[in-house]
């Protein structure tokens, strides 16, 4: 494991040559700042709300990796003092689906910082997020000597056909896609890395109903007090050293955890699925996107009778999707 961790770090260093800085404001990062790292491709439409959401939570600096966008994202971000941007046209797949780039940036800029690693369609929800900034959470984690914070991916979707949920730039995606599945998640233990492997939700129900093994993993550990010796292994699903993956309690209690609301399923999704299929830059020959494309031909309605409408984090906590732990 130690070797694997070293290998990941070395890969990150090697792959760092693929990144060209476009806008480097990293000198402005102050010692205790909360950072956010995000890789995107052609997601300009999502950026305005994304930035607003995380600025409101109290993220102080954004580190973006633009993987060959052609939609003017760089122009949009230019001049923002709390944004640093890198550009690359190299293979996402060969950078272990972006992990190598992320590890590099984290190692270089996030040592000793709390870092949030999310995609542009993921929105971090944690206990008391409506009344307390992210800093309150990280201060509490610090005082409890916790280094990593779990937040599983919760797919949200619209009611009706996806192509009719039209997203406008700057809009809160939850306005048009507020529904989620509350109780069909399957968990098992990954003995190798010590993390939980979670599958299920609406995505599994609609797109992977016949093939559980292929259904994407939903477990994520997006918030970590970064140390230069740490490395993500596969997206933000798991990290090394393995102790960071022990975000769950085995003795009966509940540790504190959050949720990443995953607003992937909007009208933009069909185009995305086509594009990603053609690029073949995703996991297992883009099998995931293949499944999406096939299912999307019939314009499925992801909504069902048992769908829950998102209200707030307290609702998610009552449903048992996240927990306050002993934070009160």
């Amino acid at each position, binding site marked *: 494991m130690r070797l694997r961790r070293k290998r990941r770090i070395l890969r990150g260093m090697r792959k760092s040559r693929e990144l060209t800085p476009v806008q480097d404001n990293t000198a402005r990062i102050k010692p205790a700042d909360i950072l956010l790292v995000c890789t995107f491709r052609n997601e300009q439409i999502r950026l305005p709300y994304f930035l607003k959401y995380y600025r409101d939570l109290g993220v102080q600096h954004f580190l973006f990796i633009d993987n060959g966008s052609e939609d003017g994202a760089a122009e949009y971000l230019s001049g923002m003092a709390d944004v640093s941007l890198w550009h690359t046209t190299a293979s996402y797949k060969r950078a272990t689906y972006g992990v190598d780039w992320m590890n590099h940036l984290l190692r270089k800029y996030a040592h000793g910082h709390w870092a949030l690693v999310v995609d542009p369609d993921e929105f971090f929800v944690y206990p008391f997020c409506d009344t307390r900034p992210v800093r*309150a959470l990280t*201060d509490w984690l610090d005082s409890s000597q916790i280094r990593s914070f779990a937040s599983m991916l919760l797919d949200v979707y619209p009611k009706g056909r996806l192509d009719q949920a039209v997203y406008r730039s700057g809009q809160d995606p939850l306005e048009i896609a507020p529904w989620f599945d509350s109780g069909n998640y399957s968990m098992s233990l990954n003995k190798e890395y010590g993390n939980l492997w*979670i599958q299920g939700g609406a995505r599994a129900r609609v797109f992977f109903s016949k093939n559980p093994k292929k259904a994407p993993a939903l477990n994520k550990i997006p918030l970590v007090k970064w140390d230069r010796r740490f490395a993500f292994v596969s997206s933000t699903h798991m990290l090394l050293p393995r102790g960071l993956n022990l975000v769950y309690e085995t003795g009966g*209690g*509940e540790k504190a955890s959050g949720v990443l609301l995953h607003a992937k399923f909007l009208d933009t999704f069909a185009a995305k699925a086509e594009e990603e299929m053609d690029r073949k830059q995703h996991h297992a020959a883009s099998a995931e996107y293949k499944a999406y494309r096939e299912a999307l031909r019939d314009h499925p309605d992801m909504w*069902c009778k048992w769908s829950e409408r998102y209200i707030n984090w307290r609702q998610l906590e009552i449903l*048992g999707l*996240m927990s306050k732990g002993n934070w009160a």
Partner: protein
Amino acid sequence: MSSVGIVMLVHTALHRAEQVARHWLAAGCPVVLHVDRNVSEADFQAFRDRFRDQPRVKFSDRHRCEWGTWGIVAASQSASALMLERFAEVNHVYLASGSCLPLRPVQELQDYLAARPQTDFIESATTTDVPWIIGGLGAERFTLRFPFSWKRHRRLFDGYVRLQRRLGVRRRVPDGLTPHLGSQWWCLTRKTLTSILSDPRRPEYDTYFRRVWIPDECYYQTLTRLHSGKVESRSLTLSKFDYQGKPHIFYDDHLQLLRRSDCFVARKIWPQADRLYQAFLSDSLSAMKAAEPNPGKIDRLFSKAVERRTAGRPGLYMQSRMPNWWCQNTLTCAPYSVFQGFAELFEDFEPWLAKASSMQVHGHLFAKSHAEFAGGATLLNGGLSNSAVWRDHNPWGFLANLIWNTRGARQGFQFGPEDAQKITEFLVRDANAHIAVISGAWAVPLFLARGDFEEARQKAAQLQRIEAAFLKALRAHDVKARVRIWTMADFVEAPMESLQSILDDVGGAAPGHLTETPKMVKLEGFGQFLQDLKNQGMHPYLMGDFPVGHTPPPQIPAERKPYLVR
């Protein structure tokens, strides 16, 4: 001029400490500040300069304050001595920290203490009588030595404790002292504090407490018992600790809760809780009546938090709760019923049961083809799918999810040897599972089908093997489920009583006696069928004894009961 003096121990968030200190000053209380030596000299000077205009603020000698060490006691000693020496009017000294926040107007605290001039407010209990010691060191913190820091050198700390235990080394508690423990935030009278600080044996006591673990929670608590005339064993500072022994923190959203607590001072306040500081440090506020402190609501909030962290919600499996099997009695969140053999023996068991009880009755949830949800639904609460592949991908999770999703409504389902059997291990270990089995009833459909005999014979052998394995598991010594097993022969003899007992267990809608019973299948010739199997060398034994030519006794209710009521 006030008779209450405030001693503040400050180490971080100096701007907040300044704000609070000024609040005390404005009400006339003199303040002595102790700034942790870990604060840089430059920061300290800047902080000190901000009080240049305040003659009623003094700064004491600085000590290094690390959690659980003597430094904190030394700090409060120097600061209190300074307070008593410089401010002759002070009768009560209140020990507070930089993250303490007064919740009630200072005047109310002054009045409260003025009305109790002889009382020392300090939580102080003997080690044997309190449950809140964290870390397992109770009486031992007074009899062992603790030269190593718990926070920085945990291994040395633990190792040295082990070594002393093994060697049987024990320290002698100084004569006349009875060790007491309690919250480190106290409010003592001049008289008591002076006696403690000027005790001729103080060097001896100090030497002793220097090597006690967490001396700030026992030094004054023990010595007050020696000197005080009137101890009120509670702290005026509202301070709650979690299961790791670290203080709970208050945020903006606790505002109303704190307002209603009627406590004088609370800690610990998050330094960036702007609304709290704004609300409680504004002088206009005097909403509270002259009430006794009543932290009950806050107590409940925090004890619930601790309970959630240590016990959690039973039957919930999620990203941050994945309990091991062996550390829990119930694997699910609510009781549910499992019926094996009933749907085979009765033609309309499921509708009957749904009607006779308030239970949601499913078919065979673990049938090979798909999960037979009640009413033939393809999706159940929470979006749970009836897909067999998903269910078998993680059968335990499937059942735990189903029970969790439908909490509030009792669930029941059919089970049998033809179903996927991986779940049995879970059922057996779950105290919430109420399992009722009519053994051997799997033979009834084979008998009724009257298909190819050779096929039936093979099938019977297979089903019997599977059911026997399940029954064996149900009879093991460590079974947690509530189990009832009848042989089919026994059950058929007196079905009414058995059905009644099942309904009683479920606590159904219909109290009293059975008014309607399900219809039992016709069993004429069943004995012969079994004999035929035997003749072919396959001995069915799980159903009990059905002699050849056995006709069910005429009083079997199943044959006539359907016509009884209605």
